């Protein structure tokens, strides 16, 4: 059923339909509307779940770790500093192969403190072992939660999944959303059956000490599973379309790629703006396109290669930095083409929309324009040079 919903309300509703047994969270802007709504749903008896209000994000992640280890479905949500405070637990959850599902309202990081949207928090967690999806709009955020539970809990995967949605832009924005029915969700997402759990009938030791004889294989297997997830995600996308009558693009989405001479690679809500600009430029005969990456982890390197190997000019948009090095997504996209027979002539890297600075259509047009010259390295768009002149001298 189509409804006009705030992003956070839509996510809370789809989480309700996924029936987690345990929800635990600690408030941080802009994640709060999601967990407030879930608390209301539980308080109204519209959902049978234990809602655990914890004293920190570290404990929120630990509570859902414990719940999933006991064999039930669980959910948490956070953002920014909260994600960082969780990070020790997040690596642990992935290593313990527990399919915790989490929404992250992507937000900048401190200092300076700033509550608005970029991707510095979530991108920093790319090596944690979590599967990481990025939503372009509220509909996709809703759909990715369904995929997240189904994928993470698959016996061949058993990994946690993070659904990233841009803070405020998607969490607090309103959109007409096609909400799934309970019957559809039940059909797509069967109850969680844990292949291993804390059970007094069948005692297991989880989280043992592992010495050099065994450790390497545990980490190898974790990495291998990400490859398996790469293969499974498109299959789940096909099944998703059958059940919900709506397409979900799986690992990534190409927009006007076919004959494109200039293509931007990006993640998240900025892709909507880029599509609008492409429509305008296409109307003027410019051959421009977009490759939207939905799955940052696992990273669909082969699919990106196939999609972009014949593109003459590429620009990668990062809304995060790897301070002191290349912008993170740009480095990964460039690595896709290393040693390959075909590659773009130019690959430029742009940084845009930090700490909630608006990315306008003009920002995107500027990027398309700058792609004419030589390669740019982490070139900041919409920078205000006048603000850089202040000093302590």
């Amino acid at each position, binding site marked *: 059923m189509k409804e006009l919903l705030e992003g956070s309300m839509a996510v809370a509703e789809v989480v309700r339909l996924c029936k987690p*047994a*345990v929800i635990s969270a600690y408030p941080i802007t802009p994640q709060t509307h999601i967990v407030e709504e879930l608390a209301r749903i539980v308080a109204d008896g519209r959902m049978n779940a234990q809602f655990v209000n914890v004293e920190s994000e570290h404990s929120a992640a630990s509570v859902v770790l414990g719940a999933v280890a006991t*064999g*039930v479905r669980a959910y948490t949500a956070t953002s920014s500093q909260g994600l960082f405070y969780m990070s020790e637990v997040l690596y642990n959850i992935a290593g313990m192969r527990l399919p915790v599902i989490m929404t992250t309202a992507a937000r900048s990081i401190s200092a300076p403190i700033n509550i608005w949207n970029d991707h510095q928090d979530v991108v920093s967690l790319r090596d944690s072992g979590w599967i990481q999806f990025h939503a372009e709009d509220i509909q996709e955020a809703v759909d990715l939660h369904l995929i997240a539970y189904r994928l993470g809990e698959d016996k061949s995967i058993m990994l946690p999944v993070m659904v990233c949605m841009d803070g405020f832009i998607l969490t607090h924005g309103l959109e007409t959303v096609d909400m799934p029915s309970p019957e559809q969700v039940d059909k797509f997402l069967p109850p969680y059956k844990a292949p291993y*759990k804390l059970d007094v009938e069948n005692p297991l030791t989880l989280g043992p*000490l592992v010495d050099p004889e065994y450790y390497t294989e545990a980490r190898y297997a974790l990495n291998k599973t990400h490859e398996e997830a790469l293969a499974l995600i498109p299959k789940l996308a096909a099944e998703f379309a059958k059940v919900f009558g709506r397409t979900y693009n799986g690992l990534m989405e190409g927009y006007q790629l076919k004959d494109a001479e200039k293509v931007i690679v990006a993640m998240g809500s900025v892709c909507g703006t880029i599509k609008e600009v492409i429509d305008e430029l296409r109307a003027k005969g410019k051959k421009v396109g977009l490759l939207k990456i939905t799955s940052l982890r696992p990273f669909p390197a082969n699919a990106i290669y196939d999609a972009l190997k014949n593109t003459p000019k590429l620009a990668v948009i990062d809304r995060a930095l790897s301070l002191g090095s290349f912008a993170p997504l740009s480095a990964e996209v460039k690595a896709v083409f290393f040693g390959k027979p075909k590659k773009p002539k130019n690959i430029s890297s742009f940084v845009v929309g930090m700490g909630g600075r608006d990315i306008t259509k003009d920002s995107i047009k500027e990027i398309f324009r700058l792609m004419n010259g030589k390669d740019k390295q982490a070139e900041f768009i919409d920078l205000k040079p006048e603000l850089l002149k202040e000093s302590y001298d």
Partner: protein
Amino acid sequence: MSKTLFAPGHTACAGCGQSMAARLVLDAAGPNTIIVNNTGCLEVFSTKYPESCWEVPFIHSLFENAAAVASGVESAVKYLGKADTINVIAQGGDGGTADIGLQALSGMLERGHNILYVCYDNEAYMNTGVQRSGLTPFDTNTTTSPVGAVSIGNLRPKKPMPEIANAHGIPYVAVASSGFGQDLQRKVKKALSLKGPKYIQVHVPCPLGWRHETNMTIQVAKAAVETGLYPLIEYENGVLSSRRQIAPKPVEEYLKLQGRFKHLLNKPEEIKKIQEIADNNIKKYGLKAEAQQA
């Protein structure tokens, strides 16, 4: 299955007080128990893959989060309708409890989870090589509170963890000792008979860190209690409901057994300060046996 739920064959040091206490705790709790363990000696010496001592479900996640992981386990158990039949025990060492894990523990206690938290107090970070913790006693020689030309050891007395736990308004707090096994098991059973959060702190000598002979573990543990330095008490619903009464021995009887206090034995002014700690305990908790009070 072996006679105990905590199987022998682990890799703890000879004379380890913690391994003894952990076995007593688990056997008192019985098979319908889920254990959630902080990182520390106990987890390291009992779970080296592919072996495990634990004949009940056991999970170790991180150093400081056993209380929070246990909160998730207990919430799942409640959701599954098994809250009345399954015990959830969270446990850790003194550092994992009173220092890095205090926030998670406070959250667990405040939220009212039906969990027993057991702190195995060997009074320093033994797993990493005897560094000072918030539960290291006054004047103790550790690797990070070393005795030196201008230092007499650890600067501060033990953090009052039982009182901190009790201040959360929980139904049961107890202090026990590996030197008094039956008392420990009685306290575990009593705790598990009560709903809500419970806290038990067990004094567990560490021959390596305390530098005493490995066959002296029980005597050292008993001496701590008998000098008044480690009062065995119980709080029920916030009220002191029992204390083990003693005929107080001078604190030297305890200190002289251990290398960690060796530097104090020719310093009567320091011994006097430690005797004052014991005397305050004796007075505060009424530890002196009736016959001694005349």
